[in-house]
């Protein structure tokens, strides 16, 4: 309801011109967005059901990924928050919070269903972050490296899909995903810099975490 109040304060005249479904008005929103209302559309209005389904599942899994990453950093902070790596982990966590905020906005605006397994990712993410942090700073960094590698690979494949389909149509969305992918790669490199590879059983840990991430991505796309 707050949202309705916000937009009442900034009247969106584009909606006058399309009294039918609000969804169709987003096309006009995109044009008038910069002039009148802060709200602009990241996605183009869907052409048909298949496109809507594809975009829905992409955004759903991205949202779930950012939510999970958020919880992983929370878990790591809970254990290592007061050590020397605390500020570093906090900085990376803040960036993930920005990503999650953005996806929350997109999901709400475009009526995308969030994944049903969010409570599961909540617990699993926190547990993963906390457990790897208990292995010490190197363990936490190893976890960060593995997760960020999975996520950036996933974003890359999404970028590929969108570019193959129609780069012009999805410009804003591509921009956002590229930006987030760059952030995740930066986290990955930070993790490597801070002795991620020196944790005992690094290879095993990395493989296990990445398999888990792939499974989570697969499930969240569907459920």
């Amino acid at each position: 309801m707050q949202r309705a109040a916000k937009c009442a304060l900034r009247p969106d005249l584009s909606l006058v011109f399309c009294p039918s479904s609000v969804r169709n008005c987003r096309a006009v929103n995109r044009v008038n967005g910069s002039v009148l209302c802060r709200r602009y559309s990241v996605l183009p209005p869907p052409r048909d059901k298949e496109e809507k389904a594809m975009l829905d599942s992409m955004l759903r899994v991205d949202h779930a990924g950012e939510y999970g990453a958020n919880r992983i950093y929370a878990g790591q902070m809970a254990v290592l928050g007061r050590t020397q790596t605390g500020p570093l982990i906090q900085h990376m966590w803040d960036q993930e919070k920005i990503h999650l905020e953005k996806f929350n906005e997109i999901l709400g605006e475009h009526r995308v269903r969030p994944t049903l397994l969010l409570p599961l990712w909540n617990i699993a993410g926190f547990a993963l972050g906390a457990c790897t942090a208990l292995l010490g700073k190197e363990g936490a960094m190893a976890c960060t490296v593995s997760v960020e590698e999975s996520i950036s690979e996933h974003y890359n494949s999404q970028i590929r899909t969108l570019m193959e389909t129609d780069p012009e149509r999805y410009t804003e969305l591509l921009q956002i995903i590229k930006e987030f992918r760059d952030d995740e790669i930066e986290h990955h490199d930070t993790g490597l810099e801070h002795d991620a590879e020196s944790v005992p059983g690094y290879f095993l840990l990395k493989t296990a975490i990445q398999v888990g991430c792939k499974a989570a991505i697969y499930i969240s796309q569907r459920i």
Partner: protein
Amino acid sequence: MRSLWLDMAALVRGLRAGRVLRGLGSVQGIVSPQCRNVRRGFHRATLLRLADDSKSGTSVPPPSFHEVPTAGESSSSSEPLEDGQPNTSYQDQSGEHGEDYETEEQLQVRILTSALEFVPEHGWTVEAIAAGAETLGLSSASTGMFNNGAGDLVLHFVAQCNAQLAETLAEQHNLVQLGQAESKETAEFLRDAVEMRLRMLIPYIDTWPQAMSILLLPHNIPDSLKHLSTMVDDVWYYAGDRSTDMNWYTRRAALTGIFNTTELVMVQDSSPDFEETWDFLDNRIKDVVNMANTAKQVQATGEALVQGLMGAAITLKNLTGMNQRR
């Protein structure tokens, strides 16, 4: 002679709904373009076969739909052929559409919409669809188009009601955005939306239990669930819900429960203008709001408790000297 032969071949080929339709549908003389296209849409498959047959037939009498009142000439024996011949040439244009071309889906929608007025009389049955088809000037055998029979009629009605609801909610949303109307409280909004949607059932309330049972048939359940979930999602969206966590699911589940139970109360309500139903709806929405508030309070209490425990743990760690930077 040739025309007679082609005729019999066509009859032998099959009692296609379209064939029987033309025989029974007594539209003679001036045939409206829409009717022509209705027939065209109907038996495209038949026409493909006719195209094979009658490509060589040049000695065919002129088609009846060029608005020449040939009541005497357009006897039933030559009618099939006349319709067939020009339609095949239309087919040869590889599916180019005239301005008044109508798809089969659009035709089905038209028939079902006109069938709705016969529902109070015939119930949610194939007879109602047949009566509706006859009103449009088609044969009652056009019910063969609807594989699901009465299910198609009910689902069409539900979809129509939901579309109407979504449109009205969108218009109200627009007015609020333009500042021309006040935005409502969530509870009031939900109440008004559910009441609006249920009021669309009033003309058919006597036969609605039959419709509900049709919607519960196993082969109709996926479609009816889809309609229900879309409607509930629409209502919450326009109520201002932009949640992206488990609230998304709990809110929609709650509204589905409210809607279904209120619908059940409505079909057995005999009070004037369904007052009891609206009272029931009020109470259910109050319940849900109360539950939501209680849940929030429980969560707040839980968080306070956790903080208290954390405080106690930290105090303990301080006392034992464990709380030092490593």
